[in-house]
């Protein structure tokens, strides 16, 4: 072992000349970095090598060490003139921290601000401290929470067994109700020396949003006070249980912090208890508006590990479902953006009405409208029922173009809408990339980055479609990009529905409920309606994933919320949030 390290020290390791000693090892799954050189290397990679997009930060609890994993891409090299530039494979950085009691490494917030929320999540779930992070505190869990849930030694309340299927279900069926399992007995861990009588609730230290300098010069001759406003968690404009802590000076936002986690159920821990196939219906519950896309990302990740190839017809079905889902999601996003602006429910319900027709199609094929659970490893659950393709064609050819025309008339030209949205919540292309924005948010800032083109998965390379971008980077551009993407989805749907071949929808052989997944790790990502939806799956060869992480696009898109809102009126923060199109099932996981 020592010999191999000596042999590969200087010349063979990449970037060794620029940042000597930073890379310890070139593993098959990425570069192993020395923690103390991480920031230096990261700066070099961003400045000199063009890795400007930090797509994902996550962590794995290995028996010997904790590992933080970074996925980097080059995105800025894409320009509107060359939208189809292929982005090469990700650069994966791994930092290993053997000291599990006190794991610490430098924060990359100063290099990529998009690391902000993601590092907080890693801290929250794994207990890894990022030094110099401006606001390192729990994000999904509450501040008084004890323990690091995604560590392997953590047992949650009502813990029954480490992995499903639980032995109590068959053949003796000794099931105990959760209510009967007393939580203060042996299945809850309390901190050492914890005394309920002495306990006081923790003082939450928000980033110093009240002391932020008002560089915008609002207020003028009027004497204004700074007020801290809690918007949410029960607020109609937050699209769910989401809270914005907003510091306002008069009506102007001077500081903002998103508070999330109200819907947190530790999806990732559940995923590590589940067997591989059990996770598919759970992914439906992430972004519950786009369940087919969620299935898609997850099965792609597992298929990468197992090497199963879906048959031709199944690939077509997947693309059709994913594009229908994108249309559904964009209709809702656009409709509810109008809701936030005060056009109460007319556009939203028009969108929901068209959604009904697509949900009918999902129901006919998968059996459920929202929680479709349709995709399987190597194919789909069942072939399309008789007459389905005709129904879909009827919808795509005869109805959706008409609907879009209506929507354009109803919404696009509306002057009130334009004045409220133009120039609001602007992100430049550089900022959008730095904040790891994804999906329509990124493309509305003029970055033509679409996974379907940049790294085509499934059979997307066969279809003709454009990547929609707008240069403005404001709320209006986000609306426009979504509308334009619906046209592109219709285009893809037309090609796919015409070209769908006959044949099987699963690889030959008996359907297996126990999927044999070889040890290894894979990252499967799709261009979901809201951005890059990635599933990071680590297998150790057992029936349950060793690590299961979701790169939730809306969660990461929230990173830039403060940046977009500062300087605008508080009423505009509602619109800016609406334009991100968050779904709390996915944000909180």
């Amino acid at each position: 072992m020592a010999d191999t390290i000596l042999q590969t020290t200087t010349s063979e390791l990449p970037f060794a000349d620029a940042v000597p000693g930073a890379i310890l090892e070139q593993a098959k799954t990425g570069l192993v970095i020395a923690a103390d050189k991480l920031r230096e290397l990261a700066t070099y990679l961003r400045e000199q090598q063009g890795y400007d997009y930090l797509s994902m930060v996550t962590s794995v609890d290995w028996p010997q060490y904790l590992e933080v994993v970074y996925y980097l891409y080059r995105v800025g090299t894409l320009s509107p003139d060359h939208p189809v530039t292929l982005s090469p494979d990700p650069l994966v950085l791994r930092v290993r921290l053997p000291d599990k009691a006190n794991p610490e490494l430098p924060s990359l917030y100063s290099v990529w601000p998009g690391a902000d929320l993601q590092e907080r999540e890693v801290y929250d779930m794994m207990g890894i401290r990022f030094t110099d992070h401006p606001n390192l505190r729990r994000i999904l869990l509450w501040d008084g929470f004890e323990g690091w849930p995604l560590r392997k030694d953590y047992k949650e309340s009502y813990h029954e067994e480490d992995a499903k299927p639980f032995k109590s279900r068959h053949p003796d069926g000794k099931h105990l109700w959760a209510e009967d399992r007393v939580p203060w007995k042996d299945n809850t861990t309390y901190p050492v020396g914890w005394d309920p009588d002495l306990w006081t609730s923790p003082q939450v230290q928000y980033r110093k949003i009240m002391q932020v300098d008002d560089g915008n010069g609002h207020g003028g001759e009027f004497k204004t006070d700074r007020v801290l406003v809690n918007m949410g968690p029960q607020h109609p404009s937050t699209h769910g249980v989401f809270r914005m802590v907003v510091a306002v000076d008069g009506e102007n936002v001077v500081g903002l912090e998103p508070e999330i986690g109200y819907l947190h159920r530790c999806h990732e821990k559940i995923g590590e208890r589940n067997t591989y196939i059990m996770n598919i219906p759970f992914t439906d519950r992430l972004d519950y508006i786009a369940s087919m896309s969620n299935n898609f990302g997850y099965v792609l990740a597992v298929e990468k590990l197992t090497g199963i190839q879906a048959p031709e017809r199944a690939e077509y079905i997947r693309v059709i479902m994913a594009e229908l889902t994108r249309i559904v999601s964009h209709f809702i996003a656009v409709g509810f953006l109008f809701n936030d602006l005060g056009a109460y429910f007319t556009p939203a319900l028009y969108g929901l009405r068209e959604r009904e027709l697509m949900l009918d199609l999902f129901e006919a094929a998968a059996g459920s409208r929202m929680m479709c659970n349709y995709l399987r490893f190597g194919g789909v659950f069942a072939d399309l029922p008789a007459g389905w393709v005709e129904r879909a064609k009827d919808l795509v050819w005869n109805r959706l173009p008409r609907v879009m025309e209506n929507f354009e008339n109803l919404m696009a030209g509306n002057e009130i809408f334009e004045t409220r949205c133009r120039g609001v919540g602007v992100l430049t292309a550089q900022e959008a990339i730095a904040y790891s924005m994804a999906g329509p948010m990124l493309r509305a800032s003029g970055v033509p980055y679409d996974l379907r083109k940049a790294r085509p998965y499934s059979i997307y390379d066969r279809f003709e479609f454009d990547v929609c971008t707008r240069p403005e980077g404001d709320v209006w551009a986000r609306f426009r990009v979504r509308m334009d993407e619906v046209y592109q989805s219709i285009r893809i749907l037309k090609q796919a529905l015409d070209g769908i071949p006959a044949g099987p929808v699963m690889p030959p052989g008996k359907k297996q409920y126990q999927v044999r997944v070889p040890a290894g790790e894979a990252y499967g990502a799709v261009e979901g309606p809201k951005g890059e939806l990635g599933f990071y799956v680590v297998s150790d060869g057992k029936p349950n994933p060793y690590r299961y992480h979701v790169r939730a696009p809306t969660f990461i898109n929230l990173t830039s919320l403060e940046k977009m809102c500062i300087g605008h009126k508080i009423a505009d923060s509602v619109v800016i949030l609406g334009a991100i199109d968050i779904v709390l099932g996915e944000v909180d996981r």
Partner: protein
Amino acid sequence: MFGSGVLKGLGVTLKEFVSTYVDDIKKIPSRYAGGRHELDQSSASAQTGLFTVQYPEERRKLAERFRYVPVLIYDAGTGEDRCTACGICAKVCPPQCIWIVRAKDERGKPMTKPAEFHIDTSICMNCGLCAEFCPFDAIKMDHDFEIAAYQRMPSLLFDLEKLRVPTTYYARIRPTDWADEEAAREAEKAEKAAKAAAKAAPAARPVASAAIGDTAAPPATAALAPRAALTPEEIERRKAAAAAKRAAKAEPSDTESR
């Protein structure tokens, strides 16, 4: 002109408003005449006007694959459960809401039927994996979604009695699936009969036995029979036979052709 966009938008809503009424008037017979009924909304381009279904008086026609909590199928003729308590549904269930106690006979030997079968429908996520992987077509997803109750226990804890439905019910809610499965079952039966005939034939005509034994019927004929017919004792017996066979294989012999 400033405001023309707003007016254009209002034109869309006005058109929608009027067309809903026009659509209602034009419909013959009227939607509200002669009591409420089941609506079929499956045609996208034909859908105009109001989508709203006046539930519970009106109901939408459900897709055949619509799935709600599982049911257990029993044979309408014999009253026998298809379930063999193999436990695959309990193993594959994501929220682990199924638990099964296997029946035992007087001597305490496990039998291929459930003594208890529980589904906690309050945590069932209606994913349909149990029905998908049941090898005996014994557990299927229901169409009845109106199971709201006042208490979780015992109303939403379904036991064997509550879960059982006859094959006729299943054939009614899922005619396509039922037809497919019946066809498959018939085919399998025919195949089995053919195999049995082929097996019986050599006994009747000893002269032809060698030829048939070599080509048509490999020695594993019995093992190909569906596992539905197997009792635990039978499985044990076969396991022992297979072990004996493996042992015999270690030393070369010519018994294999039998």
